[in-house]
């Protein structure tokens, strides 16, 4: 697992209070990890902070799984 994936996983576990082994690439934040719409907003904020990147709203809407987040951040992260 990449460094980015590890950091994403840590944030998801912390914010959603889920078991680490459930945080797989295909896991959907809302359907599989119990997040609600506000949780996903906060998750995106946490990614922005951790990776020193701005995630515009239209991009944030495409991040619905753990894998989506990792892919976006591997491409755009500056930290």
């Amino acid at each position, binding site marked *: 697992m990449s460094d980015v994936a590890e950091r994403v996983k840590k944030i998801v576990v912390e*914010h*959603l*209070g889920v078991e680490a082994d459930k945080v797989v690439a295909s896991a959907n934040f809302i359907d599989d990890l119990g997040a609600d719409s*506000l949780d996903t*907003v*906060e998750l995106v*904020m946490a990614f922005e902070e951790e990776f020193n990147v*701005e995630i515009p709203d239209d991009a944030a809407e495409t991040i619905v799984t753990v894998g989506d987040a990792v892919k976006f951040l591997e491409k755009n992260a500056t930290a």
Partner: protein
Amino acid sequence: MRRVVVTGLGTVSPLACGVEETWTRLLAGQSAARPLVHFDASDLPCRIGCVPPKGDGSGGTYNPDDWMEPKEQRKVDEFIVYAMSAATQALRDASWKPETYEKQTTTGVMIGSGIGGIGGIYDGSITLHEKGPRRLSPFFIPGRLANLASGYVSIEHGLKGPNHSVVTACSTGAHAIGDAARIVALGDAEVMLAGGTESAVNRVGIAGFCACRALSTSYNDTPEKASRPYDKGRDGFVMGEGAAVVVVEALDHALARGAKIYAEIVGYGMSGDAFHITSPSEDGDGAYRCMAAALKRAGMAAADIDYINAHGTSTPLGDEIELRAIERLLGAHGSKVSMSSTKSAVGHLLGAAGALEAIFSILAIRDGVAPPTLNLDNPSVETSIDLVPHVARKRKIDVALSNSFGFGGTNASLIFRRYQ
């Protein structure tokens, strides 16, 4: 109107988490006042307060994880977690677990807060200032709103009846119980969880109350001596935080399910001072009319009162004004009444105070004992009323009156009677 009773109690108080632990320590004359160490108070004129003892949940300690998932706690101010604890305790105590649609839709919540999430608003403001709007959490608003205590409690327990909240400063808890009793009396609900919660013992809360010169500042080295209602040495209140919630239920409903009944809510009075934003009216007329209204609603005379849990915050002005209003109400019967200020032990819990003091009034009836007024060494006034100095007093208590008065000149009185 239907008769209304109290069938469950719950609290996270500065003395303990749990009703019986709190009551035992109160009757033993313990003070909850301590130096403030959970934030930097070094530059504040008041550096003491009363905060629930945190721990693993044993021995009367408060463990927030017992009452709310850690990931949920992160989103809210402590007043919501306190409310979750007190409400869950009260429901368990009442053995009321509404699981059917009908039971859920006839059970409501009315938990108020004097200020709501002032600590979180302070933190959020700093985030906004330093990092900009994109860093403000989506939970900033829902985790701070005063009515979200009622909201979270209703979601946790599936309570779909009236969902309401009171914000009347230090009268909040009393107003919440009185208003909930009316909702039940009118038949809009069978059961209401009612009370107050507060978490303002933080840097911005203490600094704010210091700025309006409301807090004690002369006892920073002897905190347990600071809250001293009616005593010559009093110099302001000691702030406390926590929550208290009671189960308010229609008498018929309680009897039909064989519930334990603590007491009946027979009187509820309200009034406004229309005088000053922080000071009570000097003639005590607002307090007097409030108590008189509660008596009228109860269909009782002043001579029926056995015990009064005073508002008695330990401020130089307020204590004597309330005492004079009570003497005016009681007349010659005053010499037969015991009256204490339990704020001498737990401090002033603002929006939770009236609810916690309602619980103390109810337990005074249950156990036939008036809790003490601590630190009353030299009363500043003479009175024929027994102010229960230092030690609890065993005595007959069938009827108890509890007073709460708040900033803005908002007053509430509740009267509880032994159920028979």
